[in-house]
């Protein structure tokens, strides 16, 4: 026989994770697909609003990739054409036209010199 004193309760469990938010929410570059939900102009506006003058948007004529947003410091260290060639070669293997890829790109310079001893 069912009791009239049935207890009905609703509970929720909260799980909280806190980590650092990157500003802007990207590292060194974003590769924007032609049909991606965020377009180059929106990406440029986001970067300009959050990190003014730190990023450059490069639009391109590519079947899947519409544009690449690059941290300016990278362009100061390495030639744009060379950098873009490498980025495109690697990105086009995995990107679809509806994706936006985030990437980290670090340049480490290794120098070895020989000098005459005095």
């Amino acid at each position, binding site marked *: 026989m069912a009791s009239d004193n049935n207890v009905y309760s609703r509970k929720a469990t909260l799980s909280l994770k806190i980590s650092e938010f990157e500003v802007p929410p990207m590292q060194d570059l974003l590769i924007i697909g032609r*049909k*991606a*939900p*965020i*377009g*180059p*102009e*929106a990406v440029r*506006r986001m970067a300009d609003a959050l990190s003014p003058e730190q990023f450059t948007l490069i639009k391109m004529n590519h079947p899947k990739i519409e544009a690449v947003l690059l941290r300016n410091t990278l362009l100061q260290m390495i030639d744009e054409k060379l950098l873009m060639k490498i980025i495109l070669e690697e990105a086009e293997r995995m990107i679809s036209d*509806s994706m936006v890829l985030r990437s980290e790109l670090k340049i480490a310079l290794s120098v070895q010199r020989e000098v005459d001893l005095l």
Partner: protein
Amino acid sequence: MNISDIMTTTICTITSDKSVSYAAERMNESQVDSLVVMDHGEVLGMVTTRDVLSAHPNRIVADAMSSQPFYLSANHNVWEAYHALHQEQGGLALVMQEDQLIGFITKEIVEMKIAEYRDPLSGLYRAPYIEFIGENFLKERKPFHLLFIDLNDFGRINKLHGHPFGDDVIRTYSSVLSSLAEEQGDYLCRYAGDEFVLISTISDEQIQEYISLITRPTNVLDVFVSAAVGHVNGYQTPDFFARSWRELIAEASLGSSAAKLSKTLTSTMG
């Protein structure tokens, strides 16, 4: 006809930071096919139903719009708009009058208007087209050859074989002329009845070749058809640019009548 007579004057605007899905809703509510993208009173471009359909709905309008708006003045005529829109990507132009945006025009609207200037029998343009080309060349002081082509004995063909056959002859002869006038810088129209006008910027030697081909009897549907040609040579006529289009076309048509008369006299005397 000026484009201000056929343009769309209902201008709905949207800012570039709105989403593509919002733009679609706006178009739907306002029952329009395009929105002018404006930020702080400045026109940035247009977003059309085609743009909305091909872009992700989350994108902002700035990433879906036709960039670099193309402007035309309200005083441009439909032919100028037609040529300008064919050279532009996007097929849409904003219409300005004294720095004021007063409407927009699409390639489709212009093409529909232009289609009214096409002759349904031959598929060639009618007289207003060639008048536009000729007047434009005169305005730009660009010399050209003007040929007035009048079929010989067309009345007799109609009488002998009936008017439907005459229509077939016009249709076939038009395609013969079209295939002849396929050089860049050749503009052809069916002027009226059995008369055609050709504007060409080819060399003197080539135009003589054209004339000799046109005047030579051609077998059209088993009937030999030739034409009398009146020629005004804009490269050699000293006062060419001092004359109006009306004067030039009159001279060319009189030239073709004279050629016809001399042919008749020759055949009578012969």
